[in-house]
């Protein structure tokens, strides 16, 4: 029952009645209803929109790399940076709960990196990324890689202002990850199947994995890569170059 006016609706029905008004005459009761109708992630989305505008003005391609821990994100990233070094300006934001190990690995390639430690947090949010953009040197027309916290759940909900989410799935994981963690595979535009050099030693069913990914996201693009052997890296580099926005005058 509605606690304000006793209108006899239970909570579920209450929400379904459009235009149901709770306005009462002033002074009858100190309790009143106020309509809010706001997205809980509204604040994050505002920061994300600011980041997106900032990036667009500078012709920077921002990618949000997401995966479970141990999928080979950082190795793929260092390999990518090494290949594109000197051709495209790049920078990296590293998100981890603790340590600056990943940022150190990135800096060893000569590319500027900024480590965000989320502490107990399980994801990066657009506010953190906005602050990182203030201090990270990145030239116009460059590529910004944001390596999110290794987690296939929470980062799916937080827009950082990126152009694309790229989900990395290694073949040492289960082929059913796309349907076990559908939100992430739904949010991503590209799935990179990593560590494919290990396929001969595993029972990983590539076709099944791709079918699952397309079930949750019919338009997802898929690349096969081994960051260690270098197989398929060219396809990924080509994808990056195609995704880059034209540099504005």
């Amino acid at each position, binding site marked *: 029952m509605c*606690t*304000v006016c006793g209108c006899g609706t239970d*909570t*579920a029905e*209450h*929400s379904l009645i459009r235009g149901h008004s*709770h306005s009462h005459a002033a002074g009858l009761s*100190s*309790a*009143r*209803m*106020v*309509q*809010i*109708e*706001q*997205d*809980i*992630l*509204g*604040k*994050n989305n505002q920061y994300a929109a600011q980041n997106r505008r900032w990036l667009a003005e500078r012709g920077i391609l921002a990618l949000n790399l997401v995966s479970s821990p141990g999928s080979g994100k950082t190795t793929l990233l260092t390999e990518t940076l090494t290949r594109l070094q000197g051709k495209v300006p790049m920078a990296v934001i590293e998100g981890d709960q603790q340590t600056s190990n990943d940022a150190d690995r990135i800096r060893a390639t000569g590319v500027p990196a900024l480590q965000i430690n989320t502490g*107990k*947090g*399980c*994801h990066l*949010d657009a506010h953190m990324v906005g602050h990182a953009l203030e201090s990270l040197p990145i030239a116009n027309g460059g590529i910004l890689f944001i390596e999110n916290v290794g987690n296939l*759940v*929470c980062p*799916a*909900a*937080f827009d950082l202002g990126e152009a694309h989410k790229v989900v990395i799935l290694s073949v040492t994981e289960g082929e059913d990850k*796309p*349907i076990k963690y*559908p*939100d992430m595979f*739904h949010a991503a535009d590209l799935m990179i199947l990593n560590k494919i050099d290990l396929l001969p030693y595993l029972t990983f069913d590539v076709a099944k994995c791709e079918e*699952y990914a*397309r*079930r*949750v996201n*019919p338009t997802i693009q898929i690349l096969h890569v081994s960051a260690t052997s270098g197989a398929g890296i060219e396809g990924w580099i080509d994808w990056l170059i195609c995704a880059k926005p034209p540099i504005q005058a």
Partner: protein
Amino acid sequence: MHEMSLCEGVLQIIETEAKRQQFRKVKTVWLAIGVMSGVEIEAMRFCFDVIVRNTLADGATLEIIEVPAEAWCLECAQTVSIQQRYDACPHCGSYQLQVTSGEEMRIKELEVE
């Protein structure tokens, strides 16, 4: 555990609205949470109680309205009901579905004093 961040977002909105709409105490909060929003309802309840402690919403009742998932089937050209993202169309079996509802996370309304 991103429910903690979501609850902080809820509190921020409530505090902003308290100034705008002139209220000092929140008794009930109604949220609409889609079944495919990735929100764990029980975790949300737990986090909410922790986050609102010593705020204007301390002790407020959290009412969560679960919004069912629906999708537009490209093959059938109609809205169909689904349970999860990887569900096939219940009529034709196609996976060419565009989710149309069930992803939302909104604060709907508040009962305040």
